[in-house]
């Protein structure tokens, strides 16, 4: 009788007016299933859930998701098919796309578990019903189920039926169905034989590539890649390349954008010969496209495509267009180029990189738009591995200093994050002569996020160069901030101490930093005093016991008697640690 209560409670909650209660009930449905056990779950819970027609999308969405994990709860694969009816209802006619998508995902999960003998009568029958459903929603959902079904079927006749039915979806009247079919088509093609692709897929492919609706034609590009992977070079030349080239010259910039975005996949699918002979021209066309969005997408692929074609072609065809992009009107194009162009260095080799890329690199480094400059600097390691950094450090440094003093704090923040990398590559000398002042000036920046990042940065630099160096060079200068009249900057000192302590070790901490912290116990601002308490609290595990007893505890005891409540609180917390 106890077992009746969970389901009765669930029924009540699922009828609740309050959406949140219904939602929570649905999310706990797996717990109920566990309590009921597999048989009762199958016989009572699932039929109940099948009839549940809620109107809140959130609830339906949660239900769709939960049911996907029910295979074990209903007794394993043998019974997996009992989960199909409620999911079918959810996938067929709910208007909200996100609900249908979850239902399709769950159907795929369940479909995987359905035993092969019963696949045809259950999962495949479901697909057939959805594919011929009256509502476009069911046909759209059906498109997402073919892959799993096809993969699991070994019977040739059934496979043929599935293929035929899928092609019908590709030719559906409603654009959204065609679009869904086109989206799931590439993955499905990987399961077909070459003959099937040549004889059956190609006509459908051509049909979709001529679709009126831009949103369907967009999908052609991935199809090109999928088909190219199956066919031989010769066959791709005949069947796929013409369509791909059409897409490159499509009237709609969105289609051209898709080509640019998927260019590398297309290139590797079609193979090096076709890339050399035909795709290079297309790529250059896209780099010069009239629409900035397309040029941006193409600029992002410079590195990737460079790996697919021989060096001479890169230099002869791609580099000239790339040079034009350095002066492109749109900063997004230039920023995309900057994030990518250095990736060509390994493909070109040292000599050619010096000849061709360095000018581009320097041009972008002087760009007025900070993101462009930042993107170049972030890719420093690519160029360092090919060309030594010394060559560029002269031009690099002014750019870094510029960015470090940019009016926008987010730009300054981004530069700080590169400093440790630069330290590793440029070495101690460079840092000391050029960068150390910069790093320390950031500790006094007007923006807190910068001061915080600067302290973290100091720690990372100390990690790169070692505790001895930190002790002699960094710590004295960091600590000098403690005399600043504005308490916010004195706080930075304390924060830096907390960061540096683990890096420099207990001795250096005790001798160089602790005395100062102890002095700040007498600071006039309570915020400083309780931060001292917090700092000491953090330092305790890092120091020798003797030091803790002799230096830390007295300081904390003094703070424990402070007039300010917060100071007392934090120092008492610290004292508990200090035992």
């Amino acid at each position, binding site marked *: 009788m106890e077992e009746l209560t969970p389901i009765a409670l669930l029924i009540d909650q699922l009828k609740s007016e309050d959406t949140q209660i219904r939602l929570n009930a649905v999310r706990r449905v797996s717990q109920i299933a566990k309590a009921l056990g597999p048989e009762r779950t199958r016989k009572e819970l699932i039929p109940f859930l099948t009839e549940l027609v809620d109107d809140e999308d959130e609830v339906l969405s949660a239900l769709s998701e939960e049911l996907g994990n029910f295979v074990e709860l209903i007794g394993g694969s043998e019974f997996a098919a009992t989960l199909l009816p409620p999911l079918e209802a959810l996938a067929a006619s709910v208007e909200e796309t996100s609900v249908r998508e979850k239902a399709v995902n769950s159907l795929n999960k369940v479909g995987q578990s359905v035993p092969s003998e019963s696949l045809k009568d259950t999962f495949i029958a479901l697909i057939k019903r959805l594919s011929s459903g009256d509502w*476009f929603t069911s046909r759209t959902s059906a498109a997402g189920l073919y892959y799993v079904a096809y993969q699991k079927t070994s019977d040739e006749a059934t496979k043929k039926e599935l293929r035929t039915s899928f092609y019908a979806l590709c030719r559906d009247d409603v654009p959204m169905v065609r679009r869904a079919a086109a989206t799931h088509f590439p993955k499905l093609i990987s399961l077909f034989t070459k003959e099937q692709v040549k004889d059956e897929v190609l006509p459908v492919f051509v049909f979709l590539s001529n679709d009126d*609706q831009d949103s369907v034609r967009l999908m052609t590009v991935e199809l090109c890649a999928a088909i190219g992977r199956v066919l031989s070079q010769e066959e791709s030349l005949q069947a796929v390349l013409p369509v791909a080239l059409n897409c490159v010259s499509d009237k709609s910039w969105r289609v051209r954008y898709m080509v640019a975005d998927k260019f590398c996949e297309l290139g590797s699918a079609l193979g090096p010969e076709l890339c050399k002979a035909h795709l290079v021209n297309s790529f250059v066309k896209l780099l010069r496209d009239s629409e900035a969005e397309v040029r941006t997408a193409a600029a992002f692929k410079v590195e990737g495509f460079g790996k697919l074609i021989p060096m001479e072609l890169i230099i002869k065809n791609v580099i000239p267009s790339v040079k034009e992009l350095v002066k492109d009107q749109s900063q997004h194009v230039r920023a995309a180029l900057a994030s990518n162009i250095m990736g060509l260095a390994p493909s070109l080799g040292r000599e050619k990189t010096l000849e061709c890329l360095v000018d581009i690199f320097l041009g972008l480094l002087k760009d007025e738009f900070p993101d462009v400059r930042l993107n170049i600097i972030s890719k420093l390691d690519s160029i360092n591995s090919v060309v030594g950094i010394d060559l560029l450090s002269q031009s690099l440094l002014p750019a870094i200093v510029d960015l470090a003093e940019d009016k926008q704090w987010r730009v300054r923040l981004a530069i700080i994050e590169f400093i440790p990398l630069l330290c590793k590559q440029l070495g101690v000398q460079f840092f000391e002569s050029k960068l150390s002042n910069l790093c320390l000036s950031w500790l006094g920046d007007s923006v807190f996020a910068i001061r915080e990042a600067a302290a973290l940065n100091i720690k990372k630099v100390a990690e790169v160069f070692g505790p001895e160096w930190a002790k002699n060079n960094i710590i004295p200068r960091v600590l000098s901030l403690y005399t600043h009249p504005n308490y916010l900057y004195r706080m930075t000192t304390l924060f830096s101490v907390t960061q540096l302590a683990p890096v420099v070790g207990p001795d250096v901490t005790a001798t160089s930093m602790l005395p100062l912290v102890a002095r700040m116990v007498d600071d006039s601002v309570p915020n400083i005093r309780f931060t001292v308490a917090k700092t000491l609290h953090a330092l305790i595990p890092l120091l020798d016991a003797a030091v803790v007893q002799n230096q830390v505890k007295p300081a904390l005891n003094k703070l424990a008697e402070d007039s300010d409540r917060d100071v007392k609180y934090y120092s008492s917390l610290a004292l508990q640690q200090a035992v």
Partner: protein
Amino acid sequence: MKWKLNQVFGEDPSAVNEENIITSVRFDPHGDFLAIGYQCGQVVVFKNTTGDTFKFYAQFESHHPEFDFLTSLEIEERINKIRWLKQKYDGTRMMLTSNDKTIKLWKLSERKKRGEAENNGMPKTQAKRVFGNAHAYNINSVSLCSDGETFISADDLRVNLWSLEDNKESFTCIDIKPTNMSELSEVITSATFHPFLCNQFIYSSSKGVVYQADMRTNALCESNLRCFKESNPSGKSFFSEVTSSMSDVQYSPDGRYIMARDYLNLKIWDVNNDSSPLAIYNVHDHIKPKLYELYENDIIFDKFECCWSPDSKSVMTGTYSNGFVIFDVASGEPTHMQAVNPRDKRKRRNATLPVTEDINFDEKVSHITWSSKSDLLACAAGNYIYLYVGNN
């Protein structure tokens, strides 16, 4: 085609109710439903039950009045536009409704919740998505794309592209705001998508020009616009600038023609010839002598809608004294009608001649809609909606 008044919905003719002034009407694309939007933000839906007879189906409050704190202006709840989604769902229909600043996607659903008592035939209405904060100026148009997934909304200076699935982002595809606002000379008055091409839309301007944009050329569609205008406008008068402002623009259902309504005329262009209209129909030339008066009391700024018949052979628009005109496109032959409420005790006129004397400028048919079932049309005047059935 002979038109007969079949049904009238509305309230007592002697009481003119400000709140219940009809501000938008629309048949759904399958001819099953008629939606009516009101000044007070309510939407009423009628359903086609048997043989072109409509019965009350649903009512809901679509928009509330709001206050824009930044500009210290009230945002009215008046429903400017209603557009039904073409796709049919099981037991559910969806529509977009819009006031000056916000567009909402409404779901009308007949599906019942388990365990609930019967809904007594009334559907449940629910606002599924709210598309807001994208217009600095007042929205004048909403139009759905044939791809079934996107729509545009237009205000005085911008046209935005939305996805039905996502109310967090909107893309401006037309922006005619000048850098210096004092140079502003032209505003957008109406915009609509092509009936079946997913990448074209047209918008009309206050200067009497229709622009056609192709979304394939660029992300921001302002270059390569085609302009449909009148090459040799005749009879330019002192008020031409005002009367040439277009209040509505529509593609024909077969996609071959563009029609625009300005204050005095309906102009029709062939899509392939933008230099000059194919035809210009005078809607109410008899008010031309009165233009000065009409300018003085702002009546010259009245806006009228226009629409096509589903077979693209006729066009219709409203006029004053509750009149409306249907033109046969091929011949230009007008059919004049007057929407007269059978309950109206006031003096009746011959309802098939244009009203040229004692024109009542307070009574006008500004909102009209023609069902995809060719023999059914509806027009709204004041608080009333008049449904006409046609016979050949």
